[in-house]
């Protein structure tokens, strides 16, 4: 009798447990959306006072002038007399170092993607894919260390520049860091082109290279674009490597060997020293909002571009 009761009890528990577990699964499933909102929200909350006006000191009222914020190069957040919060120099620094990195990473990355996908075969292909995956795993702090300790003296020796941690150094390091994602996403895009395209081109007498640039490039252009965009996204958001490799000078670069400062590096370098709750501290969160918005846009475009091909492929 007891056994029977226990059996019924167990069945009832199980019947109740299932909705609980399913509810939990659903909740976790939504976690990604919740977290993206939460990230925006919490960064926004910390930044809000400076955007909508806050008291800065006993008599002062401070409100960030957005026009000046984006258009001024004067970044003197700790100045006692007249603090300046212009991020133009950092914005230009970020764009310059990302652009330079992409100039190197895109041709190399897409070339390697084509080689891995279309030319290499069998064991070689597998080995190359694993090596590139391992390349992606190297932590950014190690890349920064390499830029700081190894690339820097090499640049000084090669160009005669007084400092080796500069735009060029950051560009090289960022290029090496964003290549793996370009290769792997680009390779996926090429792999997604149906083999019948290749066979049709082969039957018409096309060589392998003709197939690549006359058939595969047009067919996979969206996927390749997404690969480049994801590389750009990674390069813009990279923090520790550029903090160590770019020299941290807030200025608009005039040559490849000028030291620069990026948006990400600014936050990393100054948040530790900023007084919690004051204007400087909150402006750093505003920079965080800018970064969030930019990378969100880049990733969204990349994702929509990929969606575009998927829908074309289904049709």
């Amino acid at each position, binding site marked *: 009798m007891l056994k029977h009761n226990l059996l019924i009890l167990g069945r009832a528990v199980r019947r109740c447990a299932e909705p609980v*577990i*399913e509810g*939990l*699964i659903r909740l*976790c*499933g*939504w*976690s*990604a*959306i919740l*977290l*993206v909102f*939460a*990230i925006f929200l919490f*960064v926004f*909350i910390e930044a809000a006072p400076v955007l909508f006006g806050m008291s800065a000191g006993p008599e002062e009222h401070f409100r960030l002038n957005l026009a000046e914020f984006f258009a001024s190069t004067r970044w003197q957040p700790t100045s006692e007399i007249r603090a300046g919060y212009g991020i133009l120099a950092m914005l230009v620094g970020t764009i310059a170092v990302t652009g330079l990195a992409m100039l190197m990473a895109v*041709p*190399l990355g897409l*070339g*390697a993607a*084509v*080689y*891995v996908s279309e*030319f*290499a075969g069998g064991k070689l292909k597998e080995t*190359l894919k*694993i090596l*590139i*995956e*391992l390349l992606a*795993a*190297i*932590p*950014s*702090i*190690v890349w920064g*260390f*390499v830029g*700081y300790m190894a690339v820097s003296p090499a640049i000084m020796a090669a160009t005669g520049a007084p400092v080796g941690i500069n735009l060029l150094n950051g560009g090289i390091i960022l290029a*090496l860091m964003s*290549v793996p994602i370009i290769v792997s996403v680009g390779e996926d895009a090429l792999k997604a082109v149906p083999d019948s395209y290749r066979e049709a081109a082969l039957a018409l007498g096309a*060589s*392998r*290279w003709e197939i*690549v640039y006359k058939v595969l490039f047009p067919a996979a252009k969206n996927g390749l674009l997404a690969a480049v965009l994801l590389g750009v996204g990674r390069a813009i*958001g*990279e*923090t*520790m490597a550029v903090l*160590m490799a770019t020299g941290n000078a807030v200025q608009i670069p005039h040559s490849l060997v000028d030291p620069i400062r990026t948006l990400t590096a600014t*936050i*990393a370098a100054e*948040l530790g020293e900023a007084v919690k709750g004051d204007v400087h501290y909150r402006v750093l*969160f505003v920079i*965080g909002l800018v970064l*969030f918005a930019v*990378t969100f846009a880049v*990733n*969204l475009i990349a*994702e929509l571009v990929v969606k575009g091909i998927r829908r074309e492929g289904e049709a």
Partner: protein
Amino acid sequence: MIEKSEDPEVGRIGNPSYDLFAASPVERRKKITEAVVRWVLAAVTMLLILPVFAILGYLLVKAWPALTPAFILDNPKDYMRAGGIWAPLVGTFFLVLISLLVAAPVGVLAGIYLNEYARDNWFTRTVNLAVMNLAGVPSIVHALFGVGAFVLFAGMGRSLLAASCTLAVMTLPVIITSTREALAAVPMAFREACWNMGASRWQTIRTIVLPNSISGILTGVILQVARAAGETAPILFTGAVFFVPVADHGWAAFFPYGLGDRCMALSMHLFTLSTQVYGVPEEIEYATAVVLIGLVLAVNAAAISLRVFLRTRKKW
């Protein structure tokens, strides 16, 4: 009707002026381009991979004098200018462990939701988009989030717990994506067979889907570990600090940090050594970098070999 030629040389293979199958000038040019392209692309690929080996070799050679067991087991001494990396190493271990405890259940359940429960509608597409975007948020923005949400709002302060939670949020997309892929690899027929036996959705997942995809899920979890171990920016302002005195011997050396304590971390330690402290012997910096990179690569290699092993013994 083809007339037979009088000339015996016509059609003879290898005779360029008569060979019907000889390459035309266009074809020959094509072949040359093809060979050139192949070599250029191979060179490009090597250009990406060789410098990395060169760099790894360089790091290893520079670090060699300092790489001893004592370096691993000793605490940093004399303002980091001597001693080893025990305290940061243990810190990294606990950061990764706690972030794993937070991120793994949530990530795996989210993966189950996306692959097993979610219908293909706008909401699911939005969730997938959110996963993608979460993976693309810059690490320093994660740090700001960690400061806003965990350190200040949740009142954790700068602590091991806050830093671990920040790492967990950051690495969540890795687990979600790989879990989803591992589940998607289980054939639909397995589920259908189970449903036909009268099993509910959750019973099917628990008894059929999960056992068949557990190794794929593990691969994702291992990759999360590797990523969390190497990250610096998210822990910089949420819990990792420059220096914490840690006991050299005994039980306390293994559990030096409480959940509410600030801790050291290997990645942060490398940053401090190379940019914040002067007069650190070069080989200590290089050795720290080598240990960090060795850890991360070893964990990754484990994940990759697990995946390769799986592929060879898949039953379907």
